[in-house]
């Protein structure tokens, strides 16, 4: 009865070596003060000192604050826009598949390319955004050089890229609702608002929650678009936690301390993932045989 193990073992081995082992390694490295270019064997053991330093580290605190702020603005706007559009445009129409194809394009484009496109559009000198704002009488701005404007730029880019995702997921959920229930609520005389607020939205509650958790996890994982668009700057204005870890490790070259921060990141992401898991792990259902 070893059969199943031969099937799962190769995949499990790769995931252990490529995902689990690095996570354990990150824990291990967080106890050493290792700098790039030095031999790891010479790196002094520092115990929990990195973690103690982290608690009082304003830069880490600021980066967590930026991440939460970014998550708040992007996710609430994306959910609001995506859900409203889905409710308005839910009815099946001819040609819907063409629109859906278009809406998933931003998700297929490489994050590096997304970063490059928007860096061009937000460019202070030849950027298209400044030009069109100029047409309506707004002074050209140095978008990526000002803390607030750069933050706005990464939020805006994220909304462009991810609102369609929410839109498509919610439409799929709405169209999968049993029509009998919807008919019943109409017969009961619910008006349009009541119908949406008390019937439809509660019925797609779990979809909304999973979409929210998935986006929240993405916010903590994200770094590529910002790496290209702003590099985290100016200052730390757009340095999300993942990018902060990367910059700590390879810019200021503190591999050990960066590992300690990444332990914090793992904990946050695992808690959020556990939330998704709690909502139903499809892999856990009983096998057919």
């Amino acid at each position: 009865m070893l059969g199943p193990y031969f099937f799962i073992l190769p995949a499990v081995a790769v995931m252990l070596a490529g995902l689990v082992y690095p996570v354990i390694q990150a824990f291990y490295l967080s106890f050493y003060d290792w700098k790039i270019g030095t031999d790891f064997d010479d790196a002094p053991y520092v115990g929990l000192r990195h973690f103690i330093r982290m608690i009082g580290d304003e830069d880490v605190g600021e980066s967590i604050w930026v991440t939460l702020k970014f998550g708040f603005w992007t996710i609430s706007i994306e959910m609001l826009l995506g859900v409203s559009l889905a409710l308005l445009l839910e009815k099946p129409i001819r040609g819907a598949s063409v629109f859906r194809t278009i809406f998933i394009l931003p998700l297929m484009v490489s994050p590096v390319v997304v970063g490059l496109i928007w860096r061009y559009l937000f460019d202070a000198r030849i950027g298209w955004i400044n030009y069109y704002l100029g047409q309506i009488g707004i002074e050209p701005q140095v978008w990526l050089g000002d803390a607030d404007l750069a933050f706005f730029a990464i939020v805006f880019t994220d909304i462009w890229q991810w609102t369609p995702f929410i839109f498509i997921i919610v439409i799929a959920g709405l169209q999968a609702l049993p029509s009998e229930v919807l008919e019943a609520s109409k017969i009961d005389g619910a008006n349009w608002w009541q119908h949406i607020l008390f019937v439809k939205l509660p019925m797609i509650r779990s979809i909304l929650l999973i979409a929210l958790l998935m986006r929240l996890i993405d916010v903590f994982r994200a770094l590529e678009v910002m790496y290209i668009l702003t590099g985290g700057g100016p200052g730390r204005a757009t340095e999300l936690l993942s990018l902060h870890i990367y910059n700590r490790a390879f810019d200021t070259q503190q591999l050990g301390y960066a590992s300690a921060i990444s332990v914090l990141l793992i904990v946050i992401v695992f808690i959020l993932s556990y939330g998704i898991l709690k909502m139903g792990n499809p892999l856990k259902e009983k096998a057919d045989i």
Partner: protein
Amino acid sequence: MAARQINNPLHVLSHYAALILLALITLAPIWIMVATGFKDDVIVQQKEPIWFFFVPTLDNYEHIMTRGKFDRYLWNSVIVGTVATFLTLFLGGLCAYALARTEFRGRVLVANSTLLVRMVPPAVLAVPAFAMVLNFSLDNDLAVLIFFYTALNLPFAIWLLFGFYKQIPVELEEAAIVDGATPLQVFFRVLLPLMKSGYAVAGIFTFRIAWNEFILALLLTGRTTRTLPVGAAGFITDTGVEWGRIMAMGTLIVIPPLLFTFFAARQIISGMTAGAVKG
């Protein structure tokens, strides 16, 4: 589906108008990239944007293809993308099959932890991966990248393929066994043909990640092993900001994912929504 079709022509019209507006907002930045890639530097540098009417030039493409190491990057990306996709589908398929069809000790553990590790942030992998490469002096080796991309994609691939295997009735396999088919024949002759679209979706998602990934590629590749996204990002620092060339490079990187989208949009959407709608 057809039951709730709308009829009021005014509604239909505003419905389409709204969708077209949204589609234009979605497409505009991508179109601007494609267009800019075909503009010569004089047009790019002028302040007034030109959407459509300019004399297109292939100068940017000629430049990146002949002067840079574009052919090298392209080759690396193709190798990494296809090998990682093939490995992920092969290993992930076996694992998903066992999870869907058999009961064994540790099954729930494997299922749960697969979903947990799916979310490991790339930034967390960065330092340990960098350390591994230093340790075994594996820099400048595409195998490292292939290995990490396979590991990163396996959880999602297993999860997706599991769902597809569950949809195939067990009776089909049982009938084949009664007819005297060996387990291997059952797998290749009965299951695989039915799993085609499942493997296609998993393959597209895996290839997309492997093709687009930037941060690990930046860390783990050297002069000769850079992939396309790393090459494109390099344009910003290497040559100043030459937007025409950068956008031409961006356009080339985007071609394979765009082709997938046009030919398999339905499957991609099913893959994206599966997580949220099924849960």
